[in-house]
């Protein structure tokens, strides 16, 4: 079993998104409640129940597409990876759009379903981002030798 611990730098990279995209908004909502003297203890599920996680995952997807386009992979590979990431990121963001449209037009909206859909699609985009960053890291080492 060979492990290059420098290859685990994607953990730091992905945790930056988790901290800035999920933890900071949650902490900011607690700080706001404290500042205004209100009782508010939202869980991440309540904070992102309209599918906002989809927007965060779209941002992650865009940054990985950018990295992929800068790489030395062949054009076919870059195109395939970018299209797949863009599709999954767009579908994740579409959960928030559907939830917003349902609320805005007075159609029945199920926050439980929007939360589940956006959470699973965000999980997909994050995991794809992790794998592609690992593969990019490997390719950069191969191309450098």
């Amino acid at each position, binding site marked *: *079993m*060979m*492990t290059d611990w420098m290859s685990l730098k994607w953990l730091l990279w992905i945790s930056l998104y988790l901290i800035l995209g999920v933890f900071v908004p949650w902490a900011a909502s607690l700080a706001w409640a404290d500042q205004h003297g209100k009782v508010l203890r939202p869980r991440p599920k309540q904070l992102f129940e309209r599918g906002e996680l989809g927007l965060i995952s779209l941002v992650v997807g865009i940054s990985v597409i950018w990295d992929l386009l800068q790489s030395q992979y062949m054009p076919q590979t870059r195109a395939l*990876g970018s299209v797949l990431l863009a599709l999954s990121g767009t579908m994740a963001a579409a959960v928030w759009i559907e939830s917003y449209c349902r609320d805005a037009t007075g159609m029945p909206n199920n926050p439980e379903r929007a939360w589940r859909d956006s959470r*699973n699609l965000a999980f*997909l985009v994050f995991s*794809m981002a992790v*794998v592609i960053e690992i593969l990019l890291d*490997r390719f950069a080492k191969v191309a450098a030798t």
Partner: protein
Amino acid sequence: MSAPAPALAKAPSRTTVTVRLADAAFTVACLSLVFAFLLVFFPVSFARIIQDRWLHGNLTVAIMAITLLIDAGLYVRIAYRLAAKPTVLAAVCLGSLPIVVGLGVSFCLQGAVGYTLSGDLPNLQGRVGEEILVHTYLGLVSGIFLPFLALRLLQQLKAARSNREPESPSRKAAAASSY
């Protein structure tokens, strides 16, 4: 008031399976994590196994078989959970699209390998190996995600069309006579 006629009453029909993209997304995400784990902890042996499969010419078939199996299992699981009836549309989508996607990725990989070998680049063997590895991953992801995405979009199209369809005269007459 007359009693309801049991012979004329329809038996409650099972609804058809409505696929949510989130179900497929969770499965693909788990598969991605397994792939990431193997890449990090077995970087040499895992890559060599995949490259050997490609050299023996059965990588594409393996990708098709794995994605077909996962798609079918996922769909049956959703149908069982919702206690709903599978549809022909789903069978056509999930039966054909993984094969089409597998073939497409295979063509793409052949193109990428040919492009790499034709260039004057250092470490050609290593580059080809990495191309095979990334295409294997993208083939697995697209073979599961794209059929479910197509199915979801077709279901939405079908639902939108049935919502827009004007009411038939016989249905209108039946509604009027019920008042």
